[in-house]
């Protein structure tokens, strides 16, 4: 089954065509938690890898690396989005599918920007942060 419908694929390919710099997707496999009932027989790790590879097929600037339990991951499966191969702390934990596929695509687009898309006022406030902040956003695919 293809990752995107034909017209969606065209849109995603066009969006990825605007990347300013390479983005690597590091797919991390490892022991997986038992999901809620209803998940069926989905192989979350394999599907996560398929999603990452599907995105990489749409842009020469997007690449995929797959590792077993690499450092820096709290759970599996996961994808780290690495601008120019650098780990700046962007993670997607779980299979990015349905509505949340858009979050992973958005992460790639943001990581591929040479300049931040935040407003100047936000960047000014961020410049004064000197304490580690870990933001976790819980999402669902629907």
């Amino acid at each position: 089954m293809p990752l995107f419908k034909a017209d969606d694929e065209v849109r995603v390919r066009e969006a990825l065509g605007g990347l300013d710099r390479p983005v690597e997707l590091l797919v991390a496999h490892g022991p997986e938690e038992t999901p809620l009932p209803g998940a069926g027989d989905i192989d979350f790790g394999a599907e996560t890898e398929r999603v990452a590879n599907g995105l990489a097929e749409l842009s020469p600037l997007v690449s995929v690396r797959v590792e077993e339990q690499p450092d820096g991951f709290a759970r599996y499966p996961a994808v780290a989005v690495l601008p120019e191969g650098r780990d700046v702390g962007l993670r997607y934990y779980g299979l990015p599918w349905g509505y949340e596929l858009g979050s992973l695509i958005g992460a790639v687009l943001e990581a591929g920007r040479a300049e931040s898309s935040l407003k100047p006022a936000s960047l000014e406030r961020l410049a004064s942060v000197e304490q580690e902040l870990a933001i976790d956003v819980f999402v669902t695919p629907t």
Partner: protein
Amino acid sequence: MLLAYRLALASPWIRASAIEATEFPALADSLDVQAVPRIVVNGVPQWDGAVPESVFVDRILAPAFE
């Protein structure tokens, strides 16, 4: 979710993770995730739902200046 990623890209002090709640039910339960998006900062639940960028930045940075 994108705002969190943008903040992480803009500051070396900030990390951002999306967590698929149904795949990690034990973690979601421990943080009493009832609605999404639920935003958690440094392990402490903050709020549910989407907010404008200025509000998001204010709320995220609040713990750093307490």
